[in-house]
């Protein structure tokens, strides 16, 4: 279980991008999605999501528009921009390489050095 302070910088952004790419429409949905796919491993204070969403939108990787939710309420929907899709691919690659490298390093035994 990680709380927001433990998350590596940039990780929250990547989680959000991933959640949005999986079709999570609004801020609340993004939070649910992160909880669901991480099986509760990441617990972010819910409000902290929004400054991150705004930041990503400001950077031009997310776009937003107002729509109507399933229960007929106005909600703000997010989607990836083309720049966002590219960013997600790149960061996923980077993250995987880093994770693999970290795993290799951490798996090393004295005999292999």
């Amino acid at each position, binding site marked *: 279980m990680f709380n927001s302070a433990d998350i590596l910088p940039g990780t929250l952004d990547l989680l959000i991008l991933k959640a949005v790419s999986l079709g999570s429409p609004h*801020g*609340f949905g993004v939070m649910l999605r992160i909880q669901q796919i991480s099986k509760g491993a990441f617990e972010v*204070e819910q409000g902290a999501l*929004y400054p991150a969403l*705004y930041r990503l939108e*400001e*950077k031009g990787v997310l776009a937003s528009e107002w729509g109507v939710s399933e229960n007929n309420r*106005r909600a*703000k929907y997010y989607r990836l921009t083309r720049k966002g899709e590219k960013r997600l691919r790149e960061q996923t690659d980077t993250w995987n390489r880093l994770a693999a490298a970290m795993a290799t390093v951490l798996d090393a035994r004295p005999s292999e050095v």
Partner: protein
Amino acid sequence: MSAAFLLDRLFRRERIEDSLEEELRFHISERAADLQRSGVPLVEAERRAKLEFGGIENYKEQCRETRRFHGMHGFFADLRFGCRMLWRNPGFSILSILCLTLGIGANAAVFSWVEGILFRPYPAVAHQERLFALTGMARGEAEPTDLSWPDFLDLQRSCTLVDSFIVTKITGTTLSIGDRAEVSTGSIVSANYFDALGVHPILGRGFEPGEDSGRSAHPVTVISYQLWEGRFKGDPQIIGKTQRLNGVLHTIVGVAPAGFYGTFVGWAMQFWVPASMEEIFEAGGYKLEDRGGRWIEAYARLKPGVTREQAQQEIAAVAKRLEKDYPDTNRGRSIKLWPLWQTPFNNANTLLPTLEIMLAVVVFVLLIACANVGNLLLVRSFARRHEMTVRMAVGAGRGRLVRQLVTEGLILAACGAAGGLLLAHWCRHALVLLLPARGGVAMHLPGEIDWRVLALSAGVCLIATLLLGLIPAMQTRDLDLAGALKAESAGVVGSGRRAWVRSGLVVMQVSLSFVLLVGAGLLLQSLQRIRNTSPGFSTHDVLETSVNLVQAGYDAPRAQNFQDQLLDRVRALPGVESAEFARMTPLSYGSFSSTPIAVDGYQPPPEEQPIVQYNEVGPDYFATIGIPLMSGREFNRADDEKSVPVAIVNETMAAKYWGGRNPIGERVQVKGRWMQVVGVAKDSRYHSVRETPKPFFYVPLRQNFARGPGLNIRTRLSAETITAALTREVHALDRNLALFEVITLQEQVDRSTSPQLVAVTLVSVLGGLALLLAAIGLYGVMSYAVSQSTRELGLRMALGATPSHLLRLVMSRGLTLTASGIVCGAAVALASTRLLGYLLYNVSPRDPLSFGSAFLVITIASLAACFLPAWRATRTDPLRALRD
């Protein structure tokens, strides 16, 4: 940044601010709904949803901060918010912007005049910063003199630090084109004039080297764009055509570009002729080879990087050499360079003191306007105390609030500046309205709104912004969060810190207005005294006009004959007491003849050549113009070419050169000719009403012929009445001659004092404006104080105060402010009215009448301003005041 982008930014920010709230609320209610579905009761679900969400205001501020961090959202948000606040209080905003428009507009207008008249008077001329005026100086005299043509040629040959010397001399002619004759002004110039100024004619050419030499050898002219377009209807074939100027056919060789008005502040030149044509346009004969004939005005364009001091040294050295080489004409003579704004020979010089004073006056007006707006802002910041406290409570820093207030100040100041520039643009030609046309030609004194004026106005706007923003910002210091929602308790009339600041502003306004009114009073009295000062000759009952024989091409004998005949006819007109010619009318623009003199028995100090100016006048001159003779006799018809040359000296000349002896019967040498002194005339004024008495003498016209003299007529008839008769007599002699405008000598005096009139008018107008603003300020403070203390007033009434008590209470409070303002104002005025210096004439800077009337005017204005609030105080309903 394009306007569209800015608008989009503003607009988007608005959407985000509104939607942020909605988005977060959506999240919380969805979470609450989830919790409810899992069985949590509604109230508990909402509570937990909020708790899980965390500090909502904190996150909102973070979201805003995100926006702010990217781009200029913070500033735009402030701007947008500021606009909204101002939009919501249109009365406040319009009043503030109006005050600032007047304040900044007055500044911008004066800046544009200073720029267009003093610093950049010739917009079409390249590199004006290297252009300097050039005059002669006579040792021991403060007034500069003209230069002679040979001296100019020597300067041109000898100076290495100067790019070029440019000669110009204003002249005039009557232009008859088609069937319309009109007086127009022109310049006699050196051949390098257009090239040296970097002005390229749009048609034809400028003058060619050598066209300024040879006696009347080059009858060519360059005409102005206005003349070409107006009088010649833009004729594209104009080059090579001829135009009669002063009776001589001139070939038009060029048309100057639009926007080039010559190089004489005050007049738009219509034509230029080369100096070789001097004799045709100048009285006093051929002067191109006469080193003693000083008639030209000149400019020097320095080489890049040369300072005025360096060039002055070099020029002084040349003058020193000329002094040694030509002692007869140049002893005691030097040559001086002047910055353009001090040019002594055109209207830059006459308007300089006025404009200097105006620069100070408009700062006063700006301060008063800012104080007014500051007061309005204070009232509003009081109303916004609640808003400010709430914003602080939700985490906006004090810096943030100050930034918001300064932004609002900036919006007001920017609107004021825009309005002010518009005002200045409209007022560009306002100065001319205050100056009468002379000789039928309107003056030309445009303000110039260039980048320097714009930059200065922007600076003024910024200062205003800071003043406006910081006054309410000071108030944020005493915002206290705990007392956030406590209602402001009703105080005693005008008590407390805030009232203190507001009162301070009003005291400042009153004192500044007082200073301006004292200044206006002093200037008004000066003007009256100048106009009432006897110039030493009769100003009423004497008319002055002229007939230009030079323009008609008369030679000397013919002109002489004409003058005699015309005089006989004019003297025979009913109502005419006497009439006489004189070469120069006193106080008119033009140069008297001047000469080095020698007097039997007078030994001038070494290094000094006494030079005295004189006028050539007819036999009846003194009786006609009303200058009394102290002793001796007038000229008479017997003083002609065949008899002994004679002269009449004035008292100062008699005292200076004959030291108490009776000069009558003594000799004076004038231009090498010995003349016998036959009379002593009373001193009078020659160039300006304000001048101190100086030596001057008169010689008979008959012995010193001049072709273009002015006609003085003593009559009780008005100028309008006599003009028709005069024109008839002139036409009876020669149909082709035109009569110049007929004016009284009083009109001549008034024209010569018009700079004082300009100063009086401008200071009075701005003083009145300041008074109005101050009265509005006082009214605002008092009526606000009354509206804030209805509870106290009601209480007093309930305890038995009568309406007259309350009236006195409020009035006395208002008048205390006025009194403090007057005391401060009087102190400032006593210390500063000396600065009016040159503009004051025979008036003490501490003149009690001016101080008294300023006191009276301010007191009346403040009584009026306080009365309405005081009266309203007496209408307080004690029951309602106490219940509310």
